[in-house]
């Protein structure tokens, strides 16, 4: 299994975590400003002959080329039985996957916005609470340890990643932890996930210390 992405956490972190959790041996291809021309000029056009949507992140599994990060997670979820053990879990996981993707879209639009727009931090820290409220209420309603079940499913990996990125962002902005403010269930969720035994290797790996965003972002999220 090959994962290709920028040498950042970004959209690949959740995928890397799923592979670590599922004990999939992953070979990673990292792209940086030095190697991006290889991607755009050579590898991408070649990959498009197999998969016209070729983009970063991509997964290569034998003859199969998968693009679109939610599809990569879905594919791995199928392989590792992490999409949900029944229809109910599957659609809980599916909705959470799509909800966290909405959250990420808003986050990256803000983090990559030009300095004048990026300065409106108060507004962002206010608006982002919509997502926290939704997931906190979700955990309160379902009373499961994770979003869809008592064990993690694919959406948990991306939701945890977004929570972690935002804890770092709050710190970098010298603001208090968002989780500490009024999200006890999410905080508990966040801490439990961080203790998962099968993920400790990932958390000690270089990939966990990559920058969160690309160098052109207004907030890169450099490792501490």
């Amino acid at each position, binding site marked *: 299994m090959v994962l290709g992405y920028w040498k950042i956490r970004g959209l690949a972190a959740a995928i890397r975590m799923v592979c670590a959790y599922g004990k999939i041996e992953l070979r990673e291809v990292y792209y940086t400003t030095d190697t991006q021309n290889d991607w755009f000029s050579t590898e991408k056009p070649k990959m*498009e*002959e*197999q*998969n*016209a*949507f070729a983009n970063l992140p991509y997964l290569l599994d034998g003859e*199969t080329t*998968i*693009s*679109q*990060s*939610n*599809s990569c997670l*879905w*594919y791995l979820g*199928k392989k590792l039985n992490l999409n949900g053990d029944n*229809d109910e879990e599957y*659609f809980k996981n*599916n*909705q*959470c996957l*799509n*909800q966290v993707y*909405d959250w990420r*879209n808003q986050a990256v639009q803000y983090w990559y916005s030009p300095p004048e727009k990026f300065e409106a931090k108060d507004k962002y820290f206010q608006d982002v609470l919509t997502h926290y*409220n*939704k*997931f906190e*209420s*979700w955990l*309160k*309603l379902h009373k499961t340890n994770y979003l869809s079940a008592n064990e993690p499913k694919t959406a948990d990996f991306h939701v945890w990643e977004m929570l972690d990125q935002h804890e770092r962002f709050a710190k970098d902005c010298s603001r208090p932890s968002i989780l500490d403010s009024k999200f006890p269930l999410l905080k508990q969720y966040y801490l439990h996930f961080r203790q998962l035994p099968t993920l400790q290797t990932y958390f000690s790996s270089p990939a966990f210390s990559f920058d969160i965003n690309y160098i052109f972002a207004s907030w890169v999220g450099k490792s501490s």
Partner: protein
Amino acid sequence: MTTTQGFTVAYWQIRGLAAPLRMMCEYTNTPYNNVTYTPAESHKWFKEAKPQLLEKNPLINLPYILDGDKVITQSNSCLEYLGRKFNLNGNSEEEQLKNNQCLNQVMDMRNAAVGLFYKSEQEFNIEKDKYCQNVLNHYNKFEKWLEVNKTNYLSANEPRTADFHLFEMLDQHERFAKDLSKPSFLEKYPNLKQFHHRFSQLPGIQKYSNTEVARYNCNNTSASWQGKPSQ
């Protein structure tokens, strides 16, 4: 609004994200309760239905589907849910993987489109020409996809879930080009043009196009481009 209404598809009284859901129901001859909210009725959503449905689904938003005791939201989840119900998500693992990627790719296209459509009038006028260039990246991808896969539709020779959303996006963009007095986007994309035509000729889609819901505006009244139906 309670969940005893029977099978329901709910959204604003526009095409927007619900058009492919409604199309899937017509295509499969499935009666559904068409719940819509107009701007004047937005309190019915924000003050009545939403707080009630939040208790069953904290992610609740428009569109949502009610099916028995299930409350599904997030449009790609609604699409996949109907796909599961109607057996339209793909007949093999390969088809399902293709369909899944196409669903996500179309959503990227839609997010870019509504990013323009809902800008202020001033920003819309500044950005629209650049948008019409950038959107071709999506056309290129889908054209190439059809070329590589050599199927009538995105995942198979029969429609699957993602086809309904792609058709809707292509159809909205044809209307958009017309309203901007620009040439059809499809003219330079023979596979997509054929896809669009073939899909529109499906009996279930013809049936859909004669319904009231097919004649809603594409976007809400707050949009700079509402996409009103041709008179």
